[in-house]
């Protein structure tokens, strides 16, 4: 697959599932040997680290924090730097600060999320187990980037306002459910 970094960013941003899959595969084995040689030995954890790094990269692109003009290195270097940060976070938690010389990689700080890992897990499970039509509406809105008109047409709502009202109800229900379960940081 011959895609430039900009083309890859566009593919991820536009949720081109085929190309996202190919980009995931493209760097997988190289990432493995890179991290295994320097920082990590366990194969199972390595897969988790790569998948987390790849999802962080995609999210940065989805949220437009990483785009054609903010990318200062190659996309591969960026992805590897995210992976190294993840490994160092794990090592830090384990108390082994075996810092590798990674001067040639950009320093990518994981942005402070409003929630800790446990809360993220609770939110993830709530989204996974959402019933219909809420799950489909949220996927169409936040993954497929469909407009109110498109959602209304595809899901047989009278008009875009009806679709938006349904989406609002779904989000409200989800938020109310989550507010009783998650703990905010002070």
């Amino acid at each position: 697959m011959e895609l430039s970094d900009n083309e890859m960013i566009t593919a991820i941003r536009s949720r081109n599932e085929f190309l996202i899959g190919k980009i995931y595969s493209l760097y997988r084995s190289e990432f493995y040997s890179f991290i295994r040689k320097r920082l990590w030995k366990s194969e199972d954890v390595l897969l988790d680290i790569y998948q987390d790094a790849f999802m962080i990269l995609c999210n940065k692109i989805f949220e437009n924090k990483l785009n054609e003009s903010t990318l200062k290195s190659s996309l591969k270097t960026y992805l590897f730097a995210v992976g190294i940060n993840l490994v160092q976070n794990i090592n830090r938690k384990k108390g082994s600060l075996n810092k590798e010389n990674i001067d040639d990689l950009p320093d990518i700080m994981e942005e402070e999320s409003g929630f800790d890992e446990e809360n993220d897990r609770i939110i993830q499970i709530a989204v996974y187990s959402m019933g219909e039509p809420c799950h489909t509406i949220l996927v169409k809105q936040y993954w497929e980037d469909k407009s109110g008109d498109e959602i209304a047409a595809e899901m047989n709502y009278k008009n875009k306002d009806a679709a938006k009202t349904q989406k609002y109800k779904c989000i409200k229900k989800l938020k109310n459910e989550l507010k009783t379960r998650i703990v905010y940081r002070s």
Partner: protein
Amino acid sequence: MEDNRILEQEIDRYLDGSMTREEKQAFDRRLANDAELRKEVDLQQAIIKAVRKEQLERIIKREENVIRKRNIRKIVISFGSLAIAASLVGFFYMGYMNNCENLYGRYYQSYTISEIPSRGDEKLTFTKSDSIFFNALQNLESGQNKPAIRLLEELNSSSTEMLAASGDAIKWYLSLAYLKNGQKKKAKILLHNLAGNNLSEYKSKAMALLKEL
């Protein structure tokens, strides 16, 4: 409810980056002073992330399955190729051996001597080399090719007197022994030797066999 709906839409626009610069700056100011709004934004952002994560995980899972299947196919193909290669080698080897054995079977005849050799009135007794020759043929007939070859090679390279068999007979049976053992090249060298000797009793046989080889 309408107010809440508008707020939620505002949060959506703030999070997907579709606000104008002025709108964003104004919203940032509100966020800095309104802890409840901050919580709403954080929660909505976390929900959006969770929706996207679910979809990314689906893609990754599908891709991992493809990778796994490809790796399994690679192993199967490698193993399969090896098996096929081994089978082909075996097949050609068996074919080669069948051909050699077949020729040996068609050309080999038990060695017989019509009468015990004599010198004048004196009946001669077989020499040690004669015994070796018969032993070699016995080995050959019973399928012990290597011992047969070893004995015949020994005779072929020595010049000891023999009553039972000529040097050409030794060459002929040694070439057949080579053939039976799959050593075509060695057999051919001896057969060419016999075929080139006009006086040899094995000339015609050697020529015929060479033609078939």
